[in-house]
């Protein structure tokens, strides 16, 4: 027994010494780093794109750029839509709808976390791109793409929260905020625009090729230019807003599609009108959409009747029934406006009718008594029958159309009107109205044209996450919210509260917005 152990030990020792001589145990392994492997940087760029459609790996709703928190803090918070579902469902969303949210609201925290984690991904990608062995043209293109996304995230942050901390470098470890207070100290709104949003978008616009030379889904020149024009609209820099939108119009890359209603179907994804769109789709045989975006807003069951003869595979209702279009929005459409029926699913209000309305793909909404609400968001509807779908309703493929050519025309119109070019303004405006089946505007005075453009923005961009910001931008939020019967406090509810946890984590350096 003992002998065996001794022999064994000798054998092992011999093997080890032989192995060591041959450097057997010292194989050089190469860990991919940004400087020795350019795919690292390219993967980090992909990570930035994926932040547009976050999936919380913890299964929760802890961070969000365009999911349910985004829907809640844009459309539901505005006068375009109500919270929906049953009263007690998601009180945190109801608080946003009623402007009773506190700094502890988890949906508000998800937005803050989502945008800053996305910004962190951009900063990491930029750090990797700075040392990656890529040809200059490729590197510059990728840098421009992610910088645009960073600028866009800051544009959303500044509209949700006001001035926010500017983080444009990779923090040096988890304690970085202790040594560098700027990571947790709010910059002014002007600083955020001038030091991040405008330079990032301007850089992207200068470096990127136009839509025609870019593969679908990548950031291109038109996206950066259009969003920068919108930024200047917010800053009331009419000249810049006008010339950038005019450049897009003159580029010939975009046009209004004839049928408004097709824009929100898969067939309309990335059409001639599309400028900035969040891409979703089937991926490896599974659904890869923004978690819950479509389902959250889908028509909801109120008791039976959802077995649909045209959809033998579909069971039950279409979703959770949030973000129901408001009567205020419905009354904003002129009669004959084709956009009304394209934007809103109308449930047949008659309890006597055997079934409700039929959607564009043949899906029949059941009778009134089976549906919770009278109105739902058609722009969030996804056809399980006629569009890509692998069965995961939580992640339906539904592109979000964040920026369309119609808005370029409306920005051009508004800027032109402020610059005293009434005929350019009305020409733009009438293009949008004609497509909607409406007669030309009758507005003549500068002030009437301004109002006409603002009203047009509401119905043209309804439920496209613009209305609340637009009301705040134009100083109409308090008046519009009061008219819609909402409990809006002027001077407070224009902005969301800074999440209380983040204030605590900053050691009090992060300051709260007024009134919270």
């Amino acid at each position, binding site marked *: 027994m003992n002998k065996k152990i001794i022999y064994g030990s000798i054998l092992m020792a011999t093997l080890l010494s032989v192995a060591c001589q041959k450097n057997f145990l010292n194989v050089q392994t190469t860990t991919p780093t940004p400087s020795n492997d350019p795919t690292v940087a390219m993967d980090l760029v992909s990570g930035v794109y994926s932040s547009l459609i976050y999936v919380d790996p913890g299964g929760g709703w802890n*961070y969000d750029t365009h999911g349910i928190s985004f829907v809640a803090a844009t459309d539901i918070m505005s006068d375009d839509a109500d919270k929906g579902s049953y*009263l*007690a469902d998601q009180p945190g969303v109801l608080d946003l709808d009623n402007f009773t949210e*506190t700094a502890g609201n988890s949906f508000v925290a998800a937005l803050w976390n989502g945008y800053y*984690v996305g910004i962190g991904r951009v900063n990491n990608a930029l750090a990797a791109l700075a040392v990656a062995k890529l040809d200059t043209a490729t590197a510059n293109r990728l840098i421009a793409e992610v910088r645009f996304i960073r600028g866009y995230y800051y544009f959303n942050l500044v509209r949700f929260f006001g001035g926010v901390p500017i983080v444009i470098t990779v923090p040096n470890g988890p304690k970085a905020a202790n040594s560098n207070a700027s990571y947790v100290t709010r910059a002014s709104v002007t600083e955020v625009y001038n030091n991040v949003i405008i330079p990032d978008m301007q850089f992207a616009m200068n470096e990127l090729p136009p839509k025609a030379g870019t593969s679908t889904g990548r950031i291109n020149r038109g996206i950066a230019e259009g969003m920068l024009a919108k930024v200047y609209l917010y800053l009331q820099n009419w000249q810049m807003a006008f010339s950038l939108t005019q450049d897009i119009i003159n580029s010939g890359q975009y046009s209004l599609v004839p049928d408004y209603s097709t824009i929100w179907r898969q067939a309309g994804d990335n059409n001639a009108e599309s400028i900035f769109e969040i891409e979703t789709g089937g991926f490896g045989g599974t659904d890869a959409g923004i978690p819950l975006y479509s389902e959250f807003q889908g028509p909801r069951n109120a008791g039976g009747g959802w077995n649909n003869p045209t959809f033998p595979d579909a069971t039950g209702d279409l979703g959770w029934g949030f973000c129901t279009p408001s009567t205020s929005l419905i009354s904003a459409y002129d009669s004959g406006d084709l956009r009304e029926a394209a934007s809103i699913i109308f449930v047949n209000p008659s309890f006597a009718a055997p079934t409700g309305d039929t959607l564009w793909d043949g899906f029949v909404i059941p009778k009134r008594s089976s549906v919770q609400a009278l109105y739902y968001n058609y722009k969030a509807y996804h056809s399980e029958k006629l569009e890509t779908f692998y069965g995961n309703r939580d992640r339906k493929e539904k592109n979000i159309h964040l920026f369309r050519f119609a808005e370029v025309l409306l920005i051009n119109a508004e800027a032109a009107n402020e610059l005293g070019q009434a005929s350019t303004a009305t020409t733009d405006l009438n293009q949008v109205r004609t497509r909607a089946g409406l007669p030309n505007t009758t507005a003549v005075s500068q002030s009437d044209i301004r109002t006409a453009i603002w009203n047009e923005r509401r119905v043209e961009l309804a439920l496209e996450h613009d209305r609340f910001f637009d009301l705040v931008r134009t100083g109409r939020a308090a008046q519009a919210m009061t008219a819609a019967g909402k409990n809006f406090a002027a001077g407070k509810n224009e902005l969301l509260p800074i999440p209380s*946890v983040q204030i605590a984590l900053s050691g009090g350096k992060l300051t709260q917005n007024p009134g919270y």
Partner: protein
Amino acid sequence: MDQNLKWETTTESDIAVEFSTIHGKLTGDIEGYTKIVKDALINVLIPSTLGSYNPSGSGGYVLTNAASIQNKGVEVSLNWHDQINSHLSYFVGANITFNQNTVVGLNGGQPYIDGPIGADQPDVTRTDNGHPIGSFYVQKVVGVFQSQADIDNYKDKNGNILEPGTEPGDFKYQYDANGHLDSVFAGSYQPKEYFGVNMGMNYKNFDLSIVLIGSLGGKIYNGKKAFRQSLLDNVESSTADNYWTNSNHSNSEPRANGGDLPASTYFVESGNYVRINNVNIGYTIPAAAIEKTKVISSLRIYISAQNPLTLKAYSGFTPEIQSSSPTSAGIELNAYPSVKTYSIGVNVGF
């Protein structure tokens, strides 16, 4: 991950006296101890502006050498046993530990925040210098508004109404001198005293033993109550029976609400409890009675009860709360009641 992670270190100093007196019937020891865990590894939440996100967790947590924690205390244990006569003997033993858990150093310089519950209470605990780890840091409820006049009279020093949006039946929270909502440290799950008693006796062929355990001074956060998000969620009968109404002017229960209350002392309950951990009664059949079987050498019949009785201050099922992290200890979200087990048995010796 923190690139500079290192092992935590523990230093401990003890001083103890052991004694035995009255012919060895009374024995005991008294021990004073100080144990400091330096650079304890803790998952801490960091500002999300740093781009943090832990893909396996549920927030921006980073594992780091976060804090130094001191446990200081005195442990006393006494044991008495006596043989009265050839039929009767008994013993009683008791021990009690007085412990003080204190955070004595924060490596980041700032308190750590943890304990997220549901949609409206993102930061229930705070780990800060001079307080026990994972202390509850919440708004202080000072009562319930009984009338509109109550609300109108609750003002800061400048005469501004402190809670203008509230209605009678809502909580009245404590504000500081400047009219800001005041958060207070409201204890932690760490008990200040914990103890155990074991006793037993033998009388002729009967034997009896009892073990008791318990703790005092700890707090439990009723997270189940706090987590409630909707009017359709179940509530405890005590909430349903006692909520504030115009005819039931409670000063401790608010009016019926949708559940989205901020974290407050309302949810902090005492964690004090005493539990009879084990009772065992046995009877040993006299040797003479079984001798003739020539197979069995001993035979004892017993009845035992595990955990038959818990006296607790906490309104939930059990005062013993599992938690994944010491910085969020004592938040009860889904604890099962502890199981009671009764058994009858036979011990046979061959």
